[in-house]
Structures are given as C-alpha cells and as structure tokens.
C-alpha cells in the first residue's frame, strides 16, 4: 500500500498521542514517588516499601495468597480437565460454562453473596486472610481454563494415556507423570495470570476487611501518598514482567505448534 507523506505524518502523530496517554501516567508515578518537598529527588518513599511493617506483612500475605491460589487452581482444574477429555467428553460444555461463568458474575456479586459460605469456612478452617484463596481460585478460573485448554488441545491426551495405561500406569500416574509434563507452558501461563490477578485483587479483600497488598496501598494513599504510589508502581512492574513472560511463554508454544503442522 502506498503511503503519502501526509498519511504517514498523521499516523505518527496519532501514535505519539496514544503513547503519551499510556506512558505519561507511568512516568508520573515514578516522578511523584521520588519527589521531596523542596523540589529535589529522594528515594525515601521507595525505601519505605520494605520498612513499613503493615506494607511488608501485606506483601507477604498477597504472595502467599497467590501461591495458595495457584496450587488450588492446578489441583482443582488439571485433573478435572484431563478426566473430562479422557472419560466424560460429554461434560466438556458444562465444565467450560462453569469455568467461564465468573466472567459474567462480577467479583462484587460473589462478595455480596459469600457471607454464609465464609461463616462455614471460618468455622471449619479458622478465620484468616488465607481463606480468601478459596474464592480467588474461582476468580482466576476463566483465565486459567483458557490457558490449560489451549495447551491440552495441542497434545493427544487419549493416545498418551492409553499408552501409559497399557503399560500399567494408574490414573494418578497418567495425570502427574504423562499429561502434566506435556502441558507445561499452559500450566505456566495459567499460574502467571493467576499470580497477576491475585496481586491486583482489591474488591473481595477490602469488602471482607482483610488487609492484602492492594487494600494496604489504598489505605496508605490517605496518609503517605508517595509511598502508596511507589508501591503501586512496584506491583505494576512486577505484574508487567509476569504478563510479558506469559506472552513470551505463549509465543514459544505457538512457534512449536507452527513447526509441527
């Protein structure tokens, strides 16, 4: 396609405007969080990140929640999805529907309705911020399901498991030692996206009065604006690295797919 000079200029200007809109707020966070009040620069807000005890305990809580969520999600989803492919293919639509349902039922609705369930959870396993992992597993399901489903459809689960079964493997061995090693990239992307979502989760934690990372950042915003902006930027950077790794992992897989076809 021929491009006129005018067309190219317009295109350039539009792209610069998009760039400004998306990157200026990020730059502003860096600038804002390193200001001192005399017009100079200071790293005080950033060093506060690891010193403020409320913040550090919230960071730890959120990281542990992310870990618990990933483990719960994998334990719940992987055996179920493999089992559906192998033994009950009729249930595929139902499982898919249930996994994608949280997209239509906002987290805010779940938090409104979950008081009864959580009074039982509190009764059974005790009252702790880590019980949030139960409901976070539900929140990450749509994204995790897609990642794992994509990965599963690139391998022939039925043949692999029949081969393993004919050599005497039990169902547990089939899942953990035959299927799982073959869908590594899918599991990795499911884990990454879950971690990113849990680290950014605010809705449920704040409305159930638990202090996870985002809740503490929001609270800090009222007293220590610079520290909360620094913490926001730090979590954002962390999530960005995770999600960029995710897109890299995804690409690695599709390159391999392309070759095998």
């Amino acid at each position, binding site marked *: 396609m021929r491009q006129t000079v005018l067309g190219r200029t317009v295109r350039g200007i539009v792209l610069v405007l998009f760039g400004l809109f998306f990157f200026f707020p990020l730059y502003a966070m860096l600038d804002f969080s390193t200001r001192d009040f005399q017009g100079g620069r200071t790293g005080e807000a950033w060093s506060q990140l690891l010193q403020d005890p409320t913040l550090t305990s919230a960071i730890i809580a959120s990281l542990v929640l992310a870990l618990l969520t990933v483990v719960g999600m994998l334990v719940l989803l992987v055996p*179920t999805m493999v089992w559906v492919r192998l033994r009950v293919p009729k249930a595929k639509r139902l499982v898919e529907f249930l996994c994608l349902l949280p997209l239509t039922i906002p987290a805010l609705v779940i938090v409104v309705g979950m008081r009864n369930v959580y009074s039982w959870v509190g009764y059974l396993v005790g009252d702790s911020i880590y019980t949030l992992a139960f409901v976070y597993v539900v929140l990450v399901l749509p994204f995790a399901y897609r990642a794992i489903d994509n990965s599963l459809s690139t391998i022939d689960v039925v043949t692999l498991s029949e081969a393993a079964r004919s050599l005497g493997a039990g169902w547990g061995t089939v899942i953990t030692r035959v299927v799982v090693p073959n869908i590594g990239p899918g599991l990795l992307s499911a884990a990454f996206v879950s971690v990113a979502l849990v680290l950014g989760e605010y809705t449920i934690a704040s409305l159930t009065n638990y202090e996870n990372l985002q809740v503490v950042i929001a609270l800090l*915003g009222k007293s220590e604006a610079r520290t909360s*902006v620094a913490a926001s930027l730090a979590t954002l950077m962390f999530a960005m690295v995770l999600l960029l790794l995710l897109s890299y992992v995804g690409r690695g897989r599709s390159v391999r797919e392309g070759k095998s076809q």
Partner: protein
Amino acid sequence: MPSLGLLPFLGYLTVFLIVPTITVIVGAFQVDGRFSLVNIKTLFGSTAMHALSNSMLLSAATAVIGAVLGALLCYLVVNAPPTSLFRRAVLSISGVLAQFGGVTLAFAFIATLGFSGVLTELLRSTLNVDVFGSGWLFGLPGLILVYTYFQIPLMVIVFLPALEGLKPQWREAALSIGATPRQYWLQVAIPLLRPAFLGATLLLFANSFAAYATAAALVSQGQPITVLLIRAALTSEIVLGRADLAFALALEMIVVVAVVMVAYALLLRRTSRWLR
C-alpha cells in the same frame, strides 16, 4: 462411574460460586427471611436509579470511546507486518494494560492529574492552567478518563483478530472490479467487521460496568455509581433505610452484565462464521 471424577470440581464451584450467586438472588427477594419485594422496589427509587443511570453512562461512554480509539489503534497496527517489533510490542503492552485496573490505576492518575500531580503542576507552572479544577478527577468525568486507560487495550486484544481476519484477497477482488479503496471500506470491510465491533463494544461495556476497585480507590465520597452504592450497602449495613439492599443491587448487576454478555456471545457467533 467415570462422571464421579467430576464431583470435586462441581462441589467446589457449587460452594464458592453457585451458592453465593443463589444467596444474592434469593436475598434480593427477602426481608428478615420472608418473601418481600421491598428491596426490589427500592431499586427503582431515585438514588438507586440515579446510580444505575450513571453506571450506564460511564460504561457506555468508556465502551464507545474505548472501542473507537482501540479500533483506530488496531488499524494502525494491522498495517505493520505481523513480525514487526512495533506490532508485537503493541500486542504485549495491550495484554498487560488491559489487566491493569484497580487501585494501582487510580494512583497512576492521581499522580498525574491529582491536586499535586505531575501534569497538573507542569501545566500550572508553564501555562498557568489549573487542570485540577474542582476535583473532576474524583467524580464521574474522572472515572470515564481513567477507565478509558484499560478499555482501549482490551479493545485492541478483542478486535485485532477480526481486523486480521479480513483477507487481502477481498480487497484485491474489490479493487480489481473497479472499487475505490473508500468503497472497499464502506461496502466490504465495515459491514463484515460490524458484528465484531459491536460485540467488542458490548464486552467493554460489561467490563466497565463490573469494574469496582478503580472506582472505589478514586471516589471516596458519595456513591455516584451502582458498584459504589453496593460498597455503601455492604459497609454501613443500612442504605436508603434498608438492610440487605446489597443483595438487590447485586442482582441488578447480574441482570445487566448477563444481558450484555448474552448479546456479546450472539454477535461473536456471527463473526466466527467468516473468521476462520
């Protein structure tokens, strides 16, 4: 019975997804454990209706702005070759920014356009313009601006496949029988893309309607939109003179989001007919 293997999964989702949803639906029609339509009636009162219309306005505005600007960005991207660094960068960054909501995003804009934000001070010292004004950032106009930040990248992710699905042969065919590029766009490309575009706009609408964290972090006073009214109903027990109003408001959200998502699914089915 192989289907017994699904029991743990079904049981888990029943407890942590289905039961809360049913609690909301049943709770909306109850007062003190008895059937009642009082809460539903409160939804049609002026406060709840005002919040709902603001939510609709916010969602519609950010969906349309996000869809138009996102489609424009897609158009600029799709002209670049698929392997170009620019195109890959836009896709990866969109993937990240579409997820970038919540408290972090609110603080990004407070650091930019808040009272002592970087852009506010820059404009104040150079052009002597007060862009902060009377605090529009913390009301509905601010929410529209801030939501646009994650709506545009979401549009890029959702709409780019449709734009990529336009085969170059169709353009060549149209041009070879004498169509001008303008005619190609108006009579071939745009009619083909319309369902995908409308579907993506609906998805953006639902995304914005259900978003909570950004609004909660940005708006600390008043309840201009439905999700913030739910926050008030949950945290202060009694809103508009009614306990349990949160259930009714949550039901309202389910209904709106479900209607929009069903329409989205129908439009998606139509697009997938030619998008292979």
